[in-house]
């Protein structure tokens, strides 16, 4: 069995989740507590990947990344990076595609904390930033963990977007879900089964660990 597609899948999922964590924390905070107009528009945009067919997102990203259009051309000229049919392109697409899976749980976690925790920290002379990192974030660990794992699992399960903008280049863009599709197309069911089974098992174990940890955290909190 060729392990490369699996390795690529988990590398993509890890990088995507880490990048999203960095972006989603301020974004979730801003959505949870920010006072601004047009919040609805921002929320709608972030939530689009939840409802749009992946092929739609893939199609527009394909256009955007293509060197024949200004964005792709710009990136290629300035950074020397080609985004279509490349791993960096896959990462960017995955980040956009999984954005709501990271942002929404963290925002919900932040909003579920009593406002008095923030207010107490402010009256104790602490800035918003310090309050966020020392008070709010440590108290919504289950939400952050859930967000991270959902993002990871969602990226592992990505297929449509990858196919549209990544194609099928071994070692570069051929992730496990695409590999399964290829093997089935070639009527090579045992190989497809191997990939599918590994994905199935690993995903199940990850989710199982996360929910066990979360249940324990919640139990500690409820017993208080």
């Amino acid at each position, binding site marked *: 069995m060729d392990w490369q597609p699996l390795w690529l899948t988990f590398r993509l999922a890890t990088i995507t989740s880490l990048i999203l964590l960095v972006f989603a924390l301020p974004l979730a905070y801003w959505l949870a507590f920010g006072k601004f107009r047009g919040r609805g528009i921002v929320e709608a945009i972030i939530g689009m990947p939840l409802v749009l067919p992946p092929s739609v997102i893939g199609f527009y990203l394909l256009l955007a990344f293509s060197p024949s259009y200004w964005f792709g051309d710009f990136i290629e000229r300035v950074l020397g990076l080609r985004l279509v049919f490349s791993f960096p392109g896959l990462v960017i697409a995955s980040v956009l595609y999984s954005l709501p899976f990271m942002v929404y749980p963290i925002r919900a976690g932040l909003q579920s904390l009593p406002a008095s925790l923030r*207010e*107490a*920290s402010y*009256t*104790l002379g602490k800035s918003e930033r310090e309050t966020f990192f020392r008070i709010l974030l440590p108290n919504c660990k289950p939400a952050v963990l859930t967000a991270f794992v959902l993002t990871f699992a969602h990226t592992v399960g990505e297929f449509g977007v990858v196919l549209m903008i990544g194609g099928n280049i071994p070692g570069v863009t051929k992730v496990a879900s695409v590999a399964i599709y290829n093997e089935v197309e070639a009527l090579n069911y045992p190989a497809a089964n191997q990939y599918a089974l590994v994905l199935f098992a690993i995903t199940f174990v990850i989710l199982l660990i996360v929910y066990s940890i979360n249940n324990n955290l919640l139990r500690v*909190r409820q017993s*208080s």
Partner: protein
Amino acid sequence: MEIAFTLKQGNILAVTGPSGAGKTTLLKQIAGLINPQFGKITFDGQVWFDDATKKSFSPQLRNTGFVFQDYALFPHFTVEENLSFALAKEDDKSIVTELLEATGLTQLSGRKPFQLSGGQQQRVALARALVRKPRLLLLDEPFAALDYAMRYSLQALLLKFRQQFGFSIVIVTHDVGELFRLADQVVVMDHGKIEKAGTPVEVFVKEDVSSQDFIIHGEVLTCTQQNNQLHVSALIENKIRTLTLPLHFETELIPGKNFTLHYPLDSAQIRLINPS
């Protein structure tokens, strides 16, 4: 909201009134957690808020101590960490030890908030609010969830701290006893406005207030007539107290029965809880 009052340095102002009157909002506006729509807040010559000049001091700069109704202890910190979180980098750390000792929390300093009783949590909240040596302490119904004994001991502690640190206090309370024990000034609020203001005696004893919120529960122990008045000994808040009341209450105040007194003490508003 339409509120105007002046608090003398070192005095205790009690804010009371029915729920929804805007008491908590008032405290949060003083602390800078909410900005009022209009008006001006000045403390010790310093303008904290002025809608005319769009000036607003952040809560971080106002240095008020705030004790929240739900205590707002940080769940992931121990008792000691809750206090030392309030320290600025250059602050002397000995204040934390002092406050832990003064509030009797030294033994519990390593515990997390959920391992503490309500009274202990309240003491942590009070101690934490004092770490920065605030000039103004704001308390939002701080003792409402505690039993009477605990309430008394914390009120005494509060007065002791005020003497030691010299801060002024604004306290929201529904408890008339607490109000008389602690407050120099009282503001009665309703619908975002001041309905009555003055000393506790001026507000509750000499004059009428229309609010229904001030209630004393008790059990009649003895009831005797003297000089055309009733002298009633009653068990109120676990203490035996004597009340002097108009004669016509005699039929209602029977030893062994519970009663509820509504302020002001006017005959129409005395009511028995279980007249059976």
